[in-house]
Each structure stands twice: as structure tokens, then as C-alpha cells.
């Protein structure tokens, strides 16, 4: 099926029987029936019925790349806001630096931003992140914008098609956190184009042919393309 029907569903809406389908994210099962638990977009994948929320906090999954903002430096760890229902813990053992006890403020302080990876989500939803991976570090300069976490897949695009377009036509460095935070660096004009384009994608995220339209828009203003 080429065209998925973009149907909006609401909590308590009946979506299908458990005999013929599997209950995916954003749904719950009662008496053999699958219902939506959220206001969101219905998305069917193999036999899975999912509901992608229109709005909401980021739901952390291990291995996700995220952008965090440091809330507090403690004696051997930092508390970091990653736009989830809970703050995440970054332990001194999970950073690329050699941090002595009580010296955490020297490396990361309140308000600093980091590119990190979610390393652990336990049963009580206690979250841990790490900076020990390629391309993870403390962010300097550039711009940070926020989008609904549910729109991130659209901004990245199938096989990173959308984000590649953006990078190509604006020559900016762009890092998209799964938690809805996006870091952009480049010349003033390029950055503005990236931000405007992302806002357009957000607004029209549910419409069809978006990737092509965005490419047309970007092509129009681009001067040289490699």
C-alpha cells in the first residue's frame, strides 16, 4: 500500500481486534480489543497498530541520541534535562574527561548543552545518559531549537532523506536529538533557512509529498549546490 491514510484518533477509540493485529505504541488492550490511549496519528506497520502522539514529552529509549541541558552539577554526576518526564543522570564515568570528585563544575555547569546517548531506562524510569560514544560532546556555539518529539522522524525523513536535503542546500551542520531538540550551526542565512524549513515541516508534517515540496523550496533559494 503506497498511501497510508493519515487518520487522527483519540483516547478510547477502537482500533482493531487482538486476533488479527498486534498492539503497538500508543495503544492499550482490553477484552481482546485494541484502543488508542492518545490523541495522535494512526500508523499501521506489518500487523502492528501504533498511535503516534501529536503532542507530548519525549519517551526515552535506550540507544537514542538526545540533546540535554545540564540542570545541576553534583559531586560525581550531573542532572540533565532531556525533555522527558524525568531528568537524566550523567555519571562522571560516562564522560570522556578525567573528573575528580567535586570538580564536576569545571567540565559541565548549569545551562551547558550536551549531545548524549540514552544508556539506561530502568523499571522506575530512572534515566541515565552517556557521552562515551563517537560524536558525543559538550556543545559550543550554534543554535538550539525545540520541536515536538513526535515530529522528529519526519524531520529526519525516510533513510535521512529530509535531513540530507537540509544539510545539502544550507551547508549547515545539523544534529537532531530524538528528544525534540535540534542543534544547528552555520552562517546566519543558512541557519535561518534551516529553522524556517523545520518549522514548515512541523506544520505540514501530516501532509503528503512533503519531501518533494521542501526540496523545491530549498532549491529555489539555493545559489550553489554540490
Amino acid at each position, binding site marked *: 500500500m503506497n498511501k497510508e491514510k493519515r487518520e487522527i484518533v*483519540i483516547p*478510547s477509540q477502537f482500533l482493531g481486534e487482538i486476533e488479527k493485529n498486534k498492539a503497538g505504541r500508543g495503544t492499550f488492550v482490553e477484552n481482546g480489543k485494541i*484502543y488508542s490511549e492518545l490523541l495522535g496519528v494512526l500508523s499501521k506497520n506489518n500487523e502492528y497498530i501504533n498511535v503516534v502522539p501529536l503532542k507530548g514529552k519525549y519517551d526515552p529509549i535506550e540507544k537514542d541520541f538526545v540533546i540535554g541541558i545540564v540542570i545541576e552539577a553534583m559531586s560525581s554526576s550531573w542532572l540533565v534535562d532531556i525533555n522527558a518526564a524525568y531528568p537524566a543522570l550523567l555519571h562522571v564515568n560516562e564522560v570522556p574527561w578525567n573528573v575528580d570528585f567535586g570538580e564536576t563544575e569545571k567540565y559541565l555547569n548549569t545551562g551547558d548543552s550536551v549531545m548524549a546517548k540514552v544508556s539506561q531506562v530502568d523499571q522506575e524510569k530512572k534515566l541515565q545518559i552517556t557521552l562515551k560514544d563517537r560524536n558525543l560532546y559538550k556543545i559550543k556555539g550554534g543554535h538550539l531549537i525545540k520541536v515536538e518529539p513526535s515530529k522528529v522522524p519526519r524531520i529526519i525523513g525516510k533513510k535521512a532523506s529530509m535531513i540530507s536535503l537540509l544539510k545539502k542546500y544550507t551547508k549547515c551542520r545539523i544534529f537532531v536529538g530524538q528528544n525534540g531538540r535540534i542543534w544547528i550551526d552555520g552562517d546566519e542565512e543558512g541557519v535561518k533557512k534551516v529553522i524556517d524549513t523545520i518549522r514548515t515541516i512541523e506544520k505540514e508534517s*501530516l501532509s503528503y509529498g512533503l519531501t518533494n515540496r521542501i526540496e523545491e523550496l530549498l532549491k529555489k533559494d539555493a545559489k550553489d549546490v554540490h
Partner: protein
Amino acid sequence: MKSDIKLFENGKRLDGRKTDELRKIKIEVGVLHRAEGSCYLEWGGNKVLVAVYGPREAVPRHTQNPLRAIVNARYNMAAFSVDDRKRPGPDRRSREISKVTSEALEHIILTEKYPRAAIDVNIEVLEAEAGTRCAGLTAAAVALVDAGIPMKDIPVACAAGKIDGQVVLDLGKEEDNFGEADLPIAIAPRTGEVLLLQMDGHLTNDEFNKALDLAIKGCKDVSEIQKKAIMEKYEKEAGGK
């Protein structure tokens, strides 16, 4: 409270409504910028604004439940919402309404998804005209949906009562003040479960059954209004350009 007012005459009520007719209801979704979910609702002369924050880690620490989120509904009346100015701050009535509202919402919010967290629901009555707790809960439900809080159902509330011996739906101001019974309820419309139920006054068993049926029917009608408001807001996005 006794009075000379005739609340029910020739099959019509003071404001001209029939016995099973609701007052006019208007619902707007997502009206506040900071709040994660919000709803503005007008029901007859009631004007209610609800803001939802969360889920977020519950503070202070000792209030955290390691297995699920706690729901803090806070019902408050603005000083200028009533005829005689109300002193700011929660009074015993507000705290009781906050409690029964929290309990109703807790039942249908999937709280196990958010251990140690709190979901804060702020219900502000800007203008009051009988039935504020029903208006508040109905608006709170919409605000929760707007905030993306996972729920089993969208709860809805409505009251029925008795005036001049007649069981009627959705009491208005004079009916609430001078009537013989008031029965506010909240239900989960999908399953019909009753989440909130209070009653004061005097009802025979027969009258109670009539009133309950009427209130449930009222709830179902209001539920349609809630759902329509929610869908209308987001239908535009679904269509795309």
C-alpha cells in the same frame, strides 16, 4: 432553601429549557502557551480554564509513588467568579472538589506508565453559575488529551437534580440554590463506569434512578461536544496543505 420562586411551570424551567435540555456549551482546546495541555470551556454561565503540566517528576520526593504517577487536580475559584467576592486561596469546598476530581481522573489515566511522576491539573473557575465541578472535570479531560497524557477514556461530567418535584438535567443557578436535590456525576463514556458521584438533597429511589439516567445521558451528549472540539482542532493538520 425555600423560596417563592416557581422553578418549574408548564413543563418549562426558568430559563426556558426542557427537563432534559443542557445549557449551552462551548469548548476551546490548546488556549495557553506555557501549559502542556489546556482547555477553555463555557457551560451556561460557567467559564472554566484548565492547564495541565506533566508528567514530571513529583516533588517533594516523599510524595512519589514508585509504581505510578500521582494526579494532582487543583480546583480553584477566582475571587471575582462569584457574586460575593471570594477570598483567594483554597477553602474546604475547593479542596474536597480537588480530591474527588483527582480520584476520577486517576482511574482513567494510565498512571503506571509514569512511576514517581506527577500530573498536575489546574482548574480555574473564572465565572461560576452552578455545576462548576462538572465543568471543571469536563474541561480537565480535554486538557489532558491536549497534553498527550495516555488515557483509557475521556471522562465527562454532568449533573441532574430535582426542582419542584420534577427531575431535571443540568441545574442552573436558581435551580441549584432553591431546588430539592443535586446529583453531579462523572463517567468514562466508553465503558459507562461511574468515576465521580455526589448527591445532596432528597430523592426517592425512583427519582434517583431517573436522575442517574438523565445525568448519564447528559454526560454522553457532552462527551460528543468534547470529542468534536478535540477533532476540530487537529483536523486541519491531518488534511495538510
